[in-house]
């Protein structure tokens, strides 16, 4: 760890993993409510569990992105972080605001929460991913501003590399794209239209720069590839992401009331959206194949390779399946969208966060890489989580298909609830896979508590004996 202030990333990573556990527990509860609607009902309405599940996801991903930025930017800019104290203060404000919001979701009905937090003053509550009360929304904006101020001052003072600049730029994008949350028109079509600036703008536009630059950074540090090559790849991946993404937002506008030309423009441009994920795979695998050095942190490399593959499967393939207008006419608002959501979020953003944590944590704890035993735990956790998530996505996709063929693409459509009853088996599979995912997560977390650093002598001796 070249710079002391990089240590600021440690609390962010730890809090991120903690919130990740909370997210999965609430996901399991929400998944259980699909199976048995009455058991938890008096205590936990489904919308409370879902709200908490999605908001915890966003909060912990933002936590890990901030941690990654605090770790990467000082190293890239070759200078100390502008103000580590401000970073820690922001950390606690963000953590407390997030925790209070989740508590508010779980302990009271949404309308009470709205009344208690002066939503009538400036109505912003009620939209997916943006259920936070007004004070929390303002808190998030302030936290982001402080975070951006800190990062920007650091990179201004230091060396401006492509990875550093793009990471800071994407963080600016995250903050600016959150502002439409305060625009909540009465006209539902305008409301949805602008809502997608945030959701699509984040996950299919701005956030795609984060895996691009973080994969580039980890490749740079672990495989010793020269910076020039990495920079070109990142720019091209970013260019493809934005060129397909800006008009690709049209695939959200098909059936919410926007004009009909979006069916064509949305389909054509979003069909190109998997391209950046494909380029990310090619970049990661070619760089690792002709690497110049063998980095001891095998787990981090596995995470990065896994991330590119799963991101392509989830965001690219599953996304493409439901993106063309004629297909989405039947798949819009079914569990197929949820399947894409789960696999894409996990593949593209959860895994890049875990990859960065897996790379940075040993360094933050003073060693190049964890011991072989610890890495073996970590890799086991990786595989269990990946397989579980693939099963979850498949189960949800199957449920979505049942909805399509019984409720939509059929001569005599059945009512919604009847069709959902027929999909009970898939919701069971999804719940069991969810428990599998939770086990994988616990295995992954176990790896942090395995003692001992990387023992070069032992590894070399072991390598010699086997070769």
């Amino acid at each position, binding site marked *: 760890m070249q710079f002391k202030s990089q240590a600021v990333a440690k609390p962010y990573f730890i809090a991120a993993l903690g919130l990740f556990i909370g997210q999965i527990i609430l996901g399991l509860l929400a998944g259980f409510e699909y199976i048995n609607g009455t058991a938890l009902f008096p205590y936990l309405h489904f919308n409370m569990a879902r709200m908490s599940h999605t908001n915890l996801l966003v909060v912990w991903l933002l936590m890990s992105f901030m941690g990654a930025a605090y770790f990467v930017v000082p190293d890239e800019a070759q200078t100390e972080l502008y103000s580590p104290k401000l970073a820690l203060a922001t950390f606690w404000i963000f953590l407390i605001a997030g925790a209070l919001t989740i508590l508010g979701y779980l302990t009271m*009905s949404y309308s009470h929460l709205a009344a208690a937090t002066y939503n009538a003053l400036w109505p912003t509550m*009620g939209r997916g991913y943006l259920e936070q009360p007004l004070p929390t929304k303002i808190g998030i904006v302030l936290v982001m501003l402080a975070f951006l101020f800190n990062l920007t001052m650091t990179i201004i003072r230091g060396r401006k590399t492509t990875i550093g600049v793009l990471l800071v730029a994407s963080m600016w994008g995250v903050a600016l794209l959150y502002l439409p949350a305060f625009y909540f028109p009465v006209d539902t079509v305008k409301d949805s239209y602008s809502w997608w600036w945030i959701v699509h703008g984040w996950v299919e536009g701005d956030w795609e720069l984060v895996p691009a630059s973080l994969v580039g950074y980890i490749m740079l540090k672990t495989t010793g590839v020269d910076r020039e090559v990495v920079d070109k790849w990142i720019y091209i991946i970013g260019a493809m992401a934005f060129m397909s993404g800006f008009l690709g937002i049209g695939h959200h506008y098909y059936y919410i009331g926007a004009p009909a030309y979006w069916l064509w423009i949305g389909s054509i441009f979003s069909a190109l959206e998997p391209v950046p994920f494909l380029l990310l795979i090619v970049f990661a695998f070619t760089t690792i194949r002709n690497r110049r050095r063998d980095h001891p942190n095998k787990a981090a490399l596995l995470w990065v390779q896994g991330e590119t593959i799963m991101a392509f499967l989830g965001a690219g393939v599953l996304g493409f399946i439901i993106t063309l207008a004629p297909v989405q006419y039947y798949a819009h608002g079914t569990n197929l969208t949820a399947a894409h959501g789960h696999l894409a979020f996990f593949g593209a953003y959860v895994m890049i966060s875990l990859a960065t944590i897996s790379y940075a944590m040993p360094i933050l704890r003073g060693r190049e890489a964890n011991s072989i035993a610890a890495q073996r735990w970590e890799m086991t956790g990786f595989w269990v989580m990946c397989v579980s998530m693939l099963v979850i996505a498949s189960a949800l996709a199957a449920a979505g298909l049942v909805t399509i063929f019984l409720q939509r693409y059929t001569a005599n459509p059945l009512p919604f609830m009847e069709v959902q009853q027929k999909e009970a088996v898939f919701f069971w599979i999804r719940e069991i896979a969810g428990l599998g995912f939770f086990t994988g997560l616990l295995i992954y977390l176990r790896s942090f508590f395995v003692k001992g650093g990387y023992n070069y002598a032992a590894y070399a001796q072991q390598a010699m004996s086997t070769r």
Partner: protein
Amino acid sequence: MQTIFTKAMARNVFLGGAGFFLIAYLALSYDTWQQIPKRDHANLITPAVAEGKYLVDTNDCMGCHTINGEGAYYAPELDVSYKTYGPAFIRAWMMSQPTGAPGRRQMPNFHFTQDQLTDVIAYLQWVGNINTNGWPPNKQG
């Protein structure tokens, strides 16, 4: 001649391409923004509809239901509710919740007054008339 591939040009392609398509998107958005009021009869947004929307939002109906396909997939699509079931059924249904049928998905009772129920139903009626390019495929939503 050796292939030239400079980082500077890659950056220009990134910035140029992004800016270019952003402008294209803004132009299309401007056209869309002009047409939305016609497509969803914005003139029919009465205070009752607005109040209905406020109630729908602050009770997180989109946390279980979907409107125009957006929201959660736990409960039926509301876009077709007015046409498929009609105001009287909706009113009675919402007042009689939760059903308590064992194992079935439950909807909480929001304890709306009769006026609030009228507003919510007015909002559902208005939502049902949005020109969503012929979606959903049938009245089941």
